[in-house]
C-alpha cells in the first residue's frame, strides 16, 4: 500500500468506528469496563500520563494514595480477599515497580487475583539504564501468573482484557502489565473494549471427568473414617454452600488450613479446627488415623503436612483441586478430582450415600477436650498477671460476635488469631499464609475495608510487623478507612523468639525489639488510640475500639515469653504434635 492510499482511507475509517484515545485513557477505560472502582497506587515519573488521565476519571475511579508501593499491593490483596474481586495497584517504574515484588510473591503463593499496572521508561530508552528503568518483567516473572510489557498503545485494550481474565480465572493470581511512557502518551484509534473469555494456550479449568467423581465417591462411601481438609479453594470457587452440603450429607469431620478459615463458620458442628504447625490437636492427630483423606482446594503446604513421609500414609487420598500442578506435588493422590470445586463438589455430593460418622466425629471431640485442658483453657482464661494473646482474641470474639473481618500480620499473634478467632461468614480472614509477609497486616486491612466497607475490619498485628509498614497510617489518615488496629505487643519478635527458645537453647539473638509509643504515633496521624496492660481494661478497650466511628489503634501489652502451642515441630509428623 502506498503512503497516499493510507492517508486517503484512514480518516474515513476513524470517523466511522473509532475515537482517538491515549494509551493512558485506554487503561482507565479498561478498568471501568472490568468493574474496577478502587485503585491503590503511588505516582511517579514513568506513570504520569496515566495519573494525568486519572484526573478526568475521578468520579468513576477512586484512587487511594498509599504511602509505599508495597502498601499499595497489599491493600489490593486485602481488597481482593474481602470483595472477591480483582485488586488493582498502580506504581511507577524502577523503585516503584520493585516495591511491588513482595506483594506479588505474596499474591502468587496465596492465589490472589491482582492486576498491577506499572509505568516504564519510553520505549526508545528500554535497555539503556535510563532514569528509573528496571527490567520489571524479568524481575517479576517467577512471582506473577502472567506479565506483559506494552510498547504500543493499540495493544492496551486487549492486553488488559487478558490481564483481568487471567488474574481471576482458574487458580487466581497476580498479573503485572508494564506500560512504557511512550505507549501511555500514544494516541490511537480506540475501537471499544471487549472482555476476554478465551486464550487458547490457557486452560483455567478443566472439563470435569465423571470417572474421577465416581471413583472418589466410591472410596468415600466405603470409608469408615473419612476426614475432609479444606483450603482457600472453597472461597475462591465461591463454593462455601456446596462445601457445606457436601460435608453435611456425608457427615464428615472437616478441618481448615489457615487460608481456608471462614469458608465454613467456626461454630459448625462438623468443624474440627485448624490444621498445621500451630493448628489444633485433633485434626493433626487424626490425619494419621483416617482411612480416606478428602482434600478440597488446598495444596498440602509443608506447614500443613509436617514430615511428608509420615503424613497420612494409611489413608487413601482424594484431592480436589483446580490446578493440575498441585495434584501429586507433595502428597500422592489416590483419586485426583481435577476441576473447579464449584462444579466437582455438587457432583460428588450427588453420589454420596448417607453414612453415620458420629462416633468418628466424637473421637475428634475427645482429643479436643485434651487440647482445651492442656492449652486452650489457660490461653483464653489465664490466671497469670499479664494478659495472653488468646484472651484478647476471646474478648474480641465476644464483642464482635464473630462478624468482624480479621486481618492479621505474621507471627505468633497470627497463629493465635487464626486459632481462636470466630468466623461467622466467608471472606472474613485476611492473612499472609504462604509467603508469611511481615508488614502485610496494616495495608491489607486498609484494602480489606475498601473491599467490604460496611463490615468491621480488625487488623491484629504484632509489635514487629506494625513497624514494617507503619507508614500506611498516613493512608488511613488521608482517606478515612475505618480500620481497627489491634497491636499485641510482647516486646519481642515472638515467633522467632519461640523457636530460639525451643530449638536454639534460648539464645535470643536479635529478637528483642523496642517500639515507639504507638498511641502517640497514631495521634500524630490524627488517629485515636489507647494502650492497656491490665486485664480489667480489656473488654472496655476492645468495645471502645469497635464502637469508634473511624480508625482506631489499640495496643495491648501481653506476656513477653508466651509460646504458641500446640506445635508440630519442623521435621516431625503431624501426629507427633506437641501440646507443650
Amino acid at each position, binding site marked *: 500500500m502506498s503512503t497516499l492510499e493510507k492517508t486517503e482511507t484512514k480518516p474515513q475509517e476513524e470517523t466511522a468506528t473509532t475515537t482517538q484515545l491515549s494509551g493512558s485513557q485506554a487503561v482507565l477505560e479498561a478498568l471501568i469496563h472490568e468493574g474496577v472502582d478502587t485503585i491503590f497506587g503511588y505516582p511517579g515519573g514513568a506513570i504520569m500520563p496515566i495519573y494525568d488521565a486519572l484526573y478526568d476519571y475521578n468520579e468513576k475511579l477512586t484512587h487511594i494514595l498509599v504511602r509505599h508501593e508495597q502498601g499499595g499491593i497489599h491493600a489490593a490483596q486485602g481488597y481482593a480477599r474481602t470483595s472477591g474481586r480483582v485488586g488493582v495497584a498502580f506504581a511507577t517504574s524502577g523503585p516503584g515497580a520493585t516495591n511491588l515484588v513482595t506483594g506479588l510473591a505474596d499474591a502468587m503463593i496465596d492465589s490472589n487475583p491482582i492486576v498491577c499496572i506499572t509505568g516504564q521508561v519510553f520505549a526508545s530508552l528500554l535497555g539503556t539504564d535510563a532514569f528509573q528503568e528496571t527490567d520489571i*518483567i*524479568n524481575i517479576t*516473572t*517467577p512471582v506473577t*501468573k*502472567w506479565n506483559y*510489557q506494552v510498547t504500543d498503545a493499540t495493544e492496551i485494550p486487549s492486553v488488559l482484557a487478558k490481564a483481568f481474565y*487471567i488474574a481471576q480465572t482458574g487458580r487466581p493470581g497476580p498479573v503485572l502489565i508494564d506500560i512504557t511512557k511512550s505507549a501511555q502518551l500514544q494516541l490511537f484509534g480506540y475501537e471499544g473494549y471487549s472482555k476476554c473469555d*478465551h*486464550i*487458547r*494456550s*490457557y*486452560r483455567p479449568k*478443566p*472439563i*470435569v*471427568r465423571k470417572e474421577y467423581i465416581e*471413583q472418589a465417591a*466410591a*472410596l468415600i462411601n*466405603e*470409608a469408615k473414617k473419612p476426614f475432609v481438609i479444606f483450603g482457600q479453594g472453597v472461597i475462591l470457587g465461591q463454593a462455601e454452600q456446596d462445601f457445606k452440603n457436601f460435608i453435611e450429607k456425608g457427615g464428615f469431620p472437616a478441618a481448615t488450613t489457615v487460608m481456608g478459615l471462614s469458608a465454613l463458620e467456626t461454630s459448625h458442628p462438623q468443624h474440627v479446627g485448624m490444621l498445621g504447625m500451630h493448628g489444633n490437636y485433633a485434626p493433626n492427630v487424626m490425619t494419621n488415623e483416617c*482411612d480416606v483423606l478428602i482434600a478440597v482446594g488446598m495444596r498440602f503446604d509443608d506447614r500443613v503436612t509436617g514430615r511428608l513421609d509420615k503424613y497420612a500414609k494409611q489413608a*487413601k487420598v482424594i484431592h480436589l483441586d483446580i*490446578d*493440575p*500442578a498441585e*495434584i*501429586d*506435588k507433595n502428597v*500422592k*493422590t*489416590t*483419586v*485426583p478430582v*481435577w476441576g473447579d470445586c464449584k462444579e466437582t463438589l455438587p457432583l460428588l455430593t450427588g453420589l454420596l450415600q448417607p453414612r453415620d460418622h458420629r462416633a468418628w466425629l466424637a473421637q475428634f471431640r475427645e482429643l479436643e477436650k485434651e487440647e482445651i485442658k492442656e492449652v486452650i483453657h489457660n490461653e483464653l482464661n489465664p490466671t497469670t498477671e499479664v494478659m495472653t494473646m488468646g484472651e484478647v482474641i476471646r474478648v474480641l470474639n465476644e464483642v464482635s460476635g464473630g462478624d468482624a473481618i480479621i486481618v492479621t500480620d505474621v507471627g505468633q499473634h497470627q497463629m493465635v488469631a487464626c486459632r481462636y478467632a470466630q468466623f461467622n461468614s466467608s471472606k472474613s480472614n485476611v492473612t499472609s499464609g504462604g509467603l508469611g509477609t511481615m508488614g502485610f497486616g496494616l495495608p491489607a486491612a486498609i484494602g480489606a475495608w475498601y473491599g467490604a466497607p460496611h463490615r468491621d475490619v480488625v487488623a491484629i498485628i504484632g509489635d514487629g510487623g506494625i513497624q514494617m509498614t507503619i507508614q500506611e497510617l498516613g493512608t488511613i489518615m488521608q482517606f478515612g478507612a475505618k480500620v481497627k488496629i489491634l497491636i499485641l505487643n510482647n516486646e519481642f519478635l515472638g515467633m522467632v523468639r519461640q523457636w530460639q527458645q525451643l530449638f536454639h537453647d534460648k539464645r535470643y539473638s536479635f529478637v528483642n525489639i523496642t517500639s515507639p509509643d504507638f498511641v502517640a504515633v497514631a495521634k500524630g496521624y490524627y488517629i485515636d488510640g489507647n494502650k492497656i496492660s491490665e486485664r480489667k481494661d480489656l473488654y472496655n478497650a476492645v468495645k471502645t475500639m469497635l464502637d469508634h466511628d473511624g480508625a482506631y489503634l489499640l495496643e495491648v501489652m501481653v506476656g513477653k515469653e508466651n509460646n504458641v502451642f500446640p506445635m508440630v515441630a519442623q521435621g516431625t509428623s503431624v501426629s507427633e504434635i506437641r501440646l507443650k
Partner: protein
Amino acid sequence: MEKQEYTITLYTENSIGMIGRISGIFSRRKINIESLNTSPSEVENIHRFTILITESEEVVRKLCRQIEKQVEVLKAYYNTDEELIWQEQALYKVPTDVIAEKAPVERLLREYGASAVVIRNDYTVFETAGHREEIDKLTAELTKYRLIEFVRGARIAIIKDSAGFHSKLKQFEREEPAPEMVENEFLDQGDKVFTM
C-alpha cells in the same frame, strides 16, 4: 527413582520472554538444562522447545505440570531416548594442512559421516549430525589433530508416537474443547486400588 535422560518437548505461543519463563522453572529448582532448542513447529505460529535434562521421572513429570501452567504454554511432553528419534549437530574447524597431509583424518571424517561446509587454505569446517556419543568420540579424535574450534547444537527430537500438533491444537480452540487426563499412578492400576 533413578535419574535418566529425558527430552521435554513443549508447544508454546511465540511470545517474547518465553525462554526466560521456561528456564526459570528449572533454575528455581536448581536443575541444569543440558540443552535447549527453540524452533518453529509443524503448526504455524506455534513454537517448539526441546529441552534435555537428566532427572527422575517424578521430577520431570512435576516440572512438566509447572511448565504447562504457564499461560503461554500449550502442552508439555516428556520422553525417554527410546521414545524419540533425536539428533545433535556439530561443527568442527580443523587446519586444512592437517587434512591434506594426514590420511587418518580424512578417513576419520568419512567414517563419522562428516561433510565439509567450507574449505579454505588455512582451515576447513566440517559438519556432522548424530547422537552425542559419536560426536564426543569424533571430537576427542580431532583434538589430537589441532582442532581449532568446536560447537555442538542442542538436541532436536521427533517423538515416535506423536501424531503432530495440528489435531491436538483443536482441543485448545474454543470450538472443540476436550477433557484432559491427569496422569496418576493409582488410577492407572484401576481395580487394585478401589477395593478397600
